[in-house]
């Protein structure tokens, strides 16, 4: 049965609800929440292996056949992201156990994190554009609550901007859906793809696609990233890591899915708009990362650079570039979580946030320092870490598409990533130690463990790229040829019968 397909959504959702009743029992809260994330990861990996042997799986809710019912579709692209998101969430949860504090734990922080995971997984798996909207909202509502949790002044103020921007983007999303329903008369993504192709890519549909482009740019932080650095640096480290690792990726996923499956008709127009936006994002993110002095701000601007980098692949649109993007999304989920956790630890250990205010941490916490160093190398794209393979493939794709300006920008941005993070490393870890051995806050092993596992993961993705290759290639092939997806949803007759 394909019912497994709904588990990455249901398991976190159900566990989150059950946890509401166990507010006082921290042991149960911790155990169940990490089990739920692990279970969702297991379901994702199991399905990923199944997709390899039997092709795209789908689940029609209540047996209503597409295009009439709503459904979940699991292809390699979606399932890779589901697995990565669940694994990263599980590790962030383990990190939260020892750092977030009992006050937060009793304020439903674990249920909220699981609600967020459920929304993220649902967005990846759904095959219906309205359900995408609903899952986005589940994810966003959880993120709103997580952002204000604790109720510090900065959090509340940042939250107001963040919520208003996201609510507006959501209403525009709904506006796009309304127009799309009026123009195409369906909301099933595969069916939409058929209808849009049938209409001969009516210009009105291109206009509608631009509404979606704006919406997902806001959510992913493509060019419209002004809200991102502030709101990602307000909450505690574990929550910020969850945001940095997952939230923008959902916007990226939606954009890639929609522009490779449905709106394929005007690649010249949307492709060049995305290319310009991605290029500007790379420039803006780099400037931001260089100009800030707050560790969390620098890391948040690195999120922006990564968004630009991944979507450069979508702008190029060929298979090599897309598989580069997919590698890079997976890599970025792991490394951004690692970077946010390491940065958060630095801030909690020293009580300072600016890079000029701390130094010599390497003497006090060598393990943390080298993990940060590894994350930096990985993000820059130095082999054997995971960033390398994505960058190489993306470079190949860009050369194939003859987009040399973007190629230059993308690889120049790596240098800025390196410089901005090296600045943190040199200022904070090198030099005279500001903390004497007796006043040093001990760093417990179980706090550092999840960061170390993330480090191992980024190394494993880099070294085991061969092992990951069949899945990524399958995903990229599916994106390059939308007919595979359409046939899996509507059946082989679907394309003929329209």
């Amino acid at each position, binding site marked *: 049965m394909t019912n497994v397909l709904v588990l990455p959504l249901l398991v976190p959702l159900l566990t989150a609800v059950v946890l509401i009743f166990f507010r006082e029992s921290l042991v149960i809260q911790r155990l169940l929440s990490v089990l739920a994330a692990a279970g969702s990861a297991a379901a994702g990996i199991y399905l990923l292996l199944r997709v390899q042997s039997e092709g795209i799986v789908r689940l029609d809710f209540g047996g209503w056949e597409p295009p009439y019912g709503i459904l979940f579709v699991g292809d390699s692209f979606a399932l890779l992201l589901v697995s990565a998101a669940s694994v990263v969430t599980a590790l962030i949860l383990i990190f939260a156990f020892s750092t977030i504090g009992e006050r937060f734990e009793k304020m439903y922080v674990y249920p909220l994190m699981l609600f967020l995971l459920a929304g993220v997984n649902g967005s990846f798996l759904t095959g219906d554009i309205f359900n995408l909207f609903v899952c986005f909202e589940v994810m966003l509502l959880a993120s709103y609550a997580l952002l204000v949790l604790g109720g510090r002044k900065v959090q509340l103020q940042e939250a107001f901007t963040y919520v*208003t921007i996201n*609510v507006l983007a959501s209403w525009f999303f709904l506006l796009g859906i309304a127009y799309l329903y009026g123009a195409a008369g369906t909301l099933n993504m595969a069916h939409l793809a058929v209808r849009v192709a049938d209409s001969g890519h009516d210009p009105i549909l291109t206009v509608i696609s631009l509404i979606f482009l704006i919406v997902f740019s806001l959510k992913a932080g493509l060019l419209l990233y002004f809200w991102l650095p502030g709101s990602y640096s307000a909450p505690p480290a574990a929550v910020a890591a969850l945001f940095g690792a997952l939230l923008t990726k959902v916007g990226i996923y939606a954009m890639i899915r929609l522009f490779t499956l449905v709106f394929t008709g005007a690649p010249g127009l949307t492709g060049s708009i995305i290319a310009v936006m991605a290029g500007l994002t790379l420039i803006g993110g780099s400037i931001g990362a260089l100009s800030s002095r707050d560790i969390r701000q620098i890391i948040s601007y690195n999120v922006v650079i990564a968004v630009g980098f991944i979507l450069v692949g979508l702008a190029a649109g060929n298979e090599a570039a897309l598989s580069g993007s997919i590698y890079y999304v997976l890599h970025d989920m792991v490394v951004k979580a690692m970077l946010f956790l390491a940065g958060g630890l630095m801030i909690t250990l020293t009580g300072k946030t600016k890079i000029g205010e701390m130094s010599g941490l390497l003497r006090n916490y060598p393990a943390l320092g080298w993990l940060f160093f590894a994350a930096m190398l990985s993000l820059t794209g130095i082999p054997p870490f995971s960033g390398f393979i994505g960058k190489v493939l993306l470079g190949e794709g860009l050369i194939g598409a003859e987009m040399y300006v973007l190629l230059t920008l993308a690889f120049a941005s790596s240098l800025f990533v390196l410089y901005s993070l090296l600045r943190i490393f040199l200022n904070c870890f090198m030099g005279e130690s500001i903390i004497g051995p007796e006043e040093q806050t001990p760093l417990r092993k179980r706090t550092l463990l999840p960061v170390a596992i993330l480090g191992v993961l980024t190394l494993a993705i880099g070294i085991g790229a061969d092992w990951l290759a069949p899945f990524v290639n399958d995903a990229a092939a599916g994106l390059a040829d939308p007919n595979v997806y359409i046939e899996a949803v509507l059946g082989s007759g679907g394309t003929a019968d329209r």
Partner: protein
Amino acid sequence: METIITVLVGVLVMVAVYLLLSRNFLRIILGSAILSHAIHLLLLAMGGLKEGNAPLISEEGSVYSDALPQALILTAIVISFAVTAFLLVLAYRIYRDTGADNLDSMRRDFDD
């Protein structure tokens, strides 16, 4: 009928944009709520306002109106309700903690 609804949507969007561009928290929240309702109406108009029976089993008739936009709107209303409520609580908390009721005074407080 669709034309009238579309004009109404335009008016609502106009009101919403005006409210959203102000700096007062309450106006921004009201603007977002009005914008959401404008889009719900648009969704209804996009489904086509045809004459027909209600799409219910107990109704007899050969022509049924499209039920999907209504289902979509119901879901969207729930979401808009939740988000508006959250924003109201958030604005109230900010007001209580910082005394700021608009973006200007919040920023000033933030810069200190």
